[in-house]
Each structure stands twice: as structure tokens, then as C-alpha cells.
């Protein structure tokens, strides 16, 4: 690959494995950074080289910009792939890479910054004629918040300006709850993002989360790869994703994709990105939510329906090439679903469950894909997020993809740590899910209650 012969993979877990495999396919050497807790990890075994960057705590390892850059320079790497999470949306890393002559496999620092500030992004997008959810400017005290909430209408969401990825949001159902929630939200925003700026947004109860995968090159071209439906969430964390969305008609799809491309083209966006929208199912309208300036966890469902390897495309555009395909050649074929298999106990309020994995028998078969860093005997460390694997199935249509997913879930054996597998089996058998009658609140408001009634027993 032009200009890239060795890549520093500045991440861990399944995404590090995913990136290392793409490197192998491209004939690029990979160096993976590991904390002390990840020395024996699968990425460390698969990469051409692993370098230890620090102790287990992310603040002292995976979140250290200077250490990552020193590791890249010290190992003779010419590029850094940040994966998702950790430093992926830290403009400082993209910036330092530029000054040190390293290729950052991701967007320009300035674009990360622009889209990272949610209020700035809203303004920019509104100026392009894309609807945004009725909301306020920054509110600095309670009176302003109350006024804004009255204007946009209850229920409202209090959102941290520096938030994102489902973090830093709180619902207020009634005016009398505003004071308490406002104080909580400010304190939380400050501690989580170091920034207590908050704004108010109208809350749409019957909404679907629809996002469009885009990728831009250095020449101002932007390609879209259709939408993903990520409406199945718990506490704003996605659990199941699929593509295409069962709620999106061809006309609506065109409108979503056109809006996403318009936004990306306007800022001259480079590399992979996702434009997120909320689809109000009662009003039949959609609104811009935010843009994520990274490869996303759920990118495989898009790969399965488009046949395009997004990580390889990331490397192509980062090296100054254009895409391997043109928009006219991108076809949506079949249906794909992804279940996030986490080390969490669905029967104990999804409490994280680290520990030693005594058995790990993932399913296989036609149209079944597993993205994972696990192996039998692996110790799931308690320092990082709980994602163990992404189980993805593809089918000619949605029914086939669901059937295949259920079969794969029944075939998936993990011992030693609790996982979300039983909960996913429950979802895949639920009539509302089968007919696509869901919204972003469905898991918490409806499914979890049913699951608790059943205690999930027959799904273990």
C-alpha cells in the first residue's frame, strides 16, 4: 500500500484483531500496542509485533497520546489506526500524527473537533437544510433550562455538549423533575467529559435510531453504504444492529443517504464516518442526531450487505487513494444482523462479568461471521469494556438472517463468564422484533419486563 508499510494498531480487543487481519490482507505489517493486562491477548499473538505501552488502566496506556506516537515512531510505523473508543475521536492524536509525519487512519483533526462538539454540529447541519431535533442553545442555569424545555415541549432530554455515543443524556418527563435532573446532568457532564455545558432537546418517544455509513476520500468524493438500524438499545448502548432497516422504504433510504452525503461533502470529510439520525415513527420525519468520526463497532453489518471491507477502504483513503468502488457499483444485497456478545449477566441487571473463560465455542456456518478476540482460557480483564464478540449473520432476507442468528446463538457456548447470549436468544424469538415493531425504548420499556418474568430460564 502506497506510503503505508507498517501500522501501529492503537487499540485492543476485537477491533485490534479486525485491523490486524485487514493489514495482513493488504500486506502491511502490524504493530499492536498492549497494556500489561493484554500481553497475552489475541491481538498480541496475531500482530507482527506487540509493544507494551503501560499498566492496565487506560489513562496510563491506551489513552496516552504521546506514548502512542512514541510507540509508532519507535517501531518504524508510518501510520496509526485508532480503532474505535480510546483515542479514535481525540483530535490531539490526529494532530500530533500530522506534525510527526505519521498517517492517521481516520479523519482530519479539525473534523473530529467540529463534529465532536454536538452543538456546533447541530448548527452546521441545520445550515445545510437537514432537520435537527427542536432544541436549545447552551443553558447555563436552571431558569434557562426551564424556559427552553417549555419551548421545545416535554418530555425533554438534557444533553452534554461534549457528550456522544449515548453518554451524557438524561430524560426529563415532567417540569417538576427538571431541577434535580439538571443538577445531576451538569455534575455528570463535568466528571465524564470535563465540560459541564448542557443543552435541551425535545425527546421523541417512538423513534428509531438510523445511521448512514459514509466514507470520504482526499479528493472530495463521498460514498454512502446505506443505513443501519440500531434501535435496540439499553441505557443508550446498542445491543443489536441490522442493515437495511425494516422501517426504511427505498424513498426514505434515498433521503437519509442524500442527507448524510450532503453533510460529509460540506465539511470535506475524509475516511470512514457515520451520520446518525432519529426517525420519528409517529410523524414519519427524521432528524440529525450526531456524526461519529470513526469506524464503528457495528460496521460489519454494512460490510455484509455491501460486500465492501470498510477497514481496507479506510487504509486506501488514508494512503491518498480513492475508493475501490464507485457509488453506482455499490449494491445492497440481502440482510445482516449483529448481536453484541458482552461479558455481562442479563439476569443480574447486566452487571459486568470479567474472569477466566473456561470454554469458548463460537458458532460457524454459511453466512455466520464472528469478530472476536476471545479464545478458550482467555482471562477477560476488568479494566475495559465488556464486548467479547460480535456475532453477525447474513441472509437473503430479514427472516433468513434472524433464523440464522437464532441457530448461531443456540450453538454458541461460553463458560466461566456470564454473557448476553441468552438475552439475544430471547430477542430473536420475540414477535415484536420479528415483525420489526420496535423503537429505541423497546428493550427497557417492554422486553426487559418480559425477560424478567421469564427469568430468561428457557433461554439459557
Amino acid at each position: 500500500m502506497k506510503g503505508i508499510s507498517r501500522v501501529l494498531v492503537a487499540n485492543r480487543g476485537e477491533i485490534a484483531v479486525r485491523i490486524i487481519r485487514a493489514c495482513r490482507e493488504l500486506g502491511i505489517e502490524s504493530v499492536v500496542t498492549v497494556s500489561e493486562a493484554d500481553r497475552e491477548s489475541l491481538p498480541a499473538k496475531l500482530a507482527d509485533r506487540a509493544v507494551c505501552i503501560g499498566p492496565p488502566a487506560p489513562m496510563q496506556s491506551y489513552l496516552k497520546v504521546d506514548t502512542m506516537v512514541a510507540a509508532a515512531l519507535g517501531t518504524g510505523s508510518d501510520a496509526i489506526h485508532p480503532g474505535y473508543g480510546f483515542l479514535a475521536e481525540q483530535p490531539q492524536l490526529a494532530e500530533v500524527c500530522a506534525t510527526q509525519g505519521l498517517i492517521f487512519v481516520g479523519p482530519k483533526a479539525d473534523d473530529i473537533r467540529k463534529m465532536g462538539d454536538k452543538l456546533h454540529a447541530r448548527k452546521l447541519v441545520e445550515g445545510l437544510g437537514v432537520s435537527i431535533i427542536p432544541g436549545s442553545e447552551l443553558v447555563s442555569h436552571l431558569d434557562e433550562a426551564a424556559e427552553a424545555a417549555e419551548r421545545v415541549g416535554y418530555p425533554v432530554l438534557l444533553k452534554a455538549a461534549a457528550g456522544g455515543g449515548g453518554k451524557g443524556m438524561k430524560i426529563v418527563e415532567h417540569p417538576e423533575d427538571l431541577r434535580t435532573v439538571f443538577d445531576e446532568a451538569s455534575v455528570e457532564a463535568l466528571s465524564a467529559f470535563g465540560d459541564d455545558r448542557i443543552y435541551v432537546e425535545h425527546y421523541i418517544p417512538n423513534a428509531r435510531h438510523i445511521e448512514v455509513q459514509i466514507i470520504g476520500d482526499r479528493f472530495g468524493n463521498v460514498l454512502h453504504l446505506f443505513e443501519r438500524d440500531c434501535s435496540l438499545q439499553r441505557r443508550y448502548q446498542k445491543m443489536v444492529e441490522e442493515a437495511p432497516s425494516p422501517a426504511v422504504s427505498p424513498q426514505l433510504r434515498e433521503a437519509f443517504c442524500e442527507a448524510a452525503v450532503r453533510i460529509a461533502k460540506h465539511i470535506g470529510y475524509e475516511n470512514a464516518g457515520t451520520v446518525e439520525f432519529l426517525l420519528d415513527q409517529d410523524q414519519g420525519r427524521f432528524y440529525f442526531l450526531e456524526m461519529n468520526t470513526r469506524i464503528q463497532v457495528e460496521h460489519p453489518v454494512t460490510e455484509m450487505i455491501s460486500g465492501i471491507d470498510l477497514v481496507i477502504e479506510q487504509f486506501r483513503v488514508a494512503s491518498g487513494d480513492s475508493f475501490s468502488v464507485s457509488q453506482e457499483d455499490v449494491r445492497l444485497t440481502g440482510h445482516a444482523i449483529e448481536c453484541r456478545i458482552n461479558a455481562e449477566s442479563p439476569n443480574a441487571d447486566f452487571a459486568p462479568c470479567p474472569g477466566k473463560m473456561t470454554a469458548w465455542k463460537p458458532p460457524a456456518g454459511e453466512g455466520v461471521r464472528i469478530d472476536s478476540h476471545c479464545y478458550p482460557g482467555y482471562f477477560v480483564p476488568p479494566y475495559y469494556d465488556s464486548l467479547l464478540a460480535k456475532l453477525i449473520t447474513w441472509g437473503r432476507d430479514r427472516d433468513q438472517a434472524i433464523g440464522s442468528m437464532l441457530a448461531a446463538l443456540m450453538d454458541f457456548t461460553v463458560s466461566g463468564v456470564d454473557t448476553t447470549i441468552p438475552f439475544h436468544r430471547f430477542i430473536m424469538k420475540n414477535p415484536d422484533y420479528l415483525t420489526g415493531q420496535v423503537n429505541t425504548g423497546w428493550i427497557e420499556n417492554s422486553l426487559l419486563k418480559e425477560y424478567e418474568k421469564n427469568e430468561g430460564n428457557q433461554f439459557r
Partner: protein
Amino acid sequence: MEDAFMEGIDQDDVIQILRMLEESTFDELHLEMGGLTLVASKSSKKASPVEGLKSDDHESTESGAAVEPTVQASEEKPNTPQPSDLDERGFTAIKAPMLGTFYSSPKPGAPPFVAVGRRVAADDSVCIIEVMKLFNTVKAGIRGRIAKICAENGQMVEYQQTLFLVEDLDEAAETGEEENDS
């Protein structure tokens, strides 16, 4: 996720956590959840703080909010050599407290901090590790005689990579002074 974890911890949880520590490769565990602090150690040895960091912001960032973890790691891996650092020939290793570029002398052209055969005291500087123009002086952390220099000038060293092997000079005196002895 975090909320769920914070809600409460009972005796079974503690036993499970201790069992996990037992099976893990770590020696110590520091766990803080809400008002609860759990500190557990496999052996009776106590970790001593990192020494020899001159201009690094390492220590001050430790209390910063980590984005990902629900459980904080054992924060300090001692730079000061521990009995476990003894290799088969009976040498003690001085290990890199961070990833960076190893420099054997204070500045280019200057004589190296130490050479093979040189006696060092715990407080003596032995090398510099540079991380993006930030120069961190590394102290020996142990007294003895430098038996081998394991890193190359100007090359990158990893976190916890062995930089020097140190030969124990006066075992009796050492043991007498050893604060970490159990």
C-alpha cells in the same frame, strides 16, 4: 454498565473478585466503588511507588476520570526492583517505567550515566527515557554493581522492559535496609 456495578457489592462478590485475582497474573488489586475500597494482594509484599520520574505528568493524571473502566487497575507497578525481578543468575533488573526512547547519557556526547562494573546507589540516575520530548530520568532504585546494560542508546524500550541487570554487592547490608521485606 457502571451504574449496575455501583449498586452494591456483597460478600459473594468479594469472594469472586478475590478468586479472580488468585487466578490472574496480577499481584495486587485496588478496587474503588462508591464508598467502598478493596485492596488485596497475593503475597505479603507491598508495592512501592514509582521513583525517578522527574518531569512526567504520569502521577498527576492518575486520578483523572478514565473513560472505559469500571474497575481501576492497580495503579503503580513499582520501578523499584522487586525480588521477582531476580533473574536466574541472581541479578536484579532495572525495568523501564514507561515506553519511550532510551538514552544512556544525560545529553548527546556526554559520558553515560553508568557503565558495566559501576557501583550504583538506589538514588543514582541510570538513564533517560524520552516520550515525545519529555525527558524522564530513571533512578536505579537498588544498590549494587551494573552487570549488564540491556538496552541500546537511542532505541525504543517498552514499558517494563529490562534496562540493566544489577549485581547485589552486600547482601547482608541490603537485607538490613530492605524496607519492602516482609
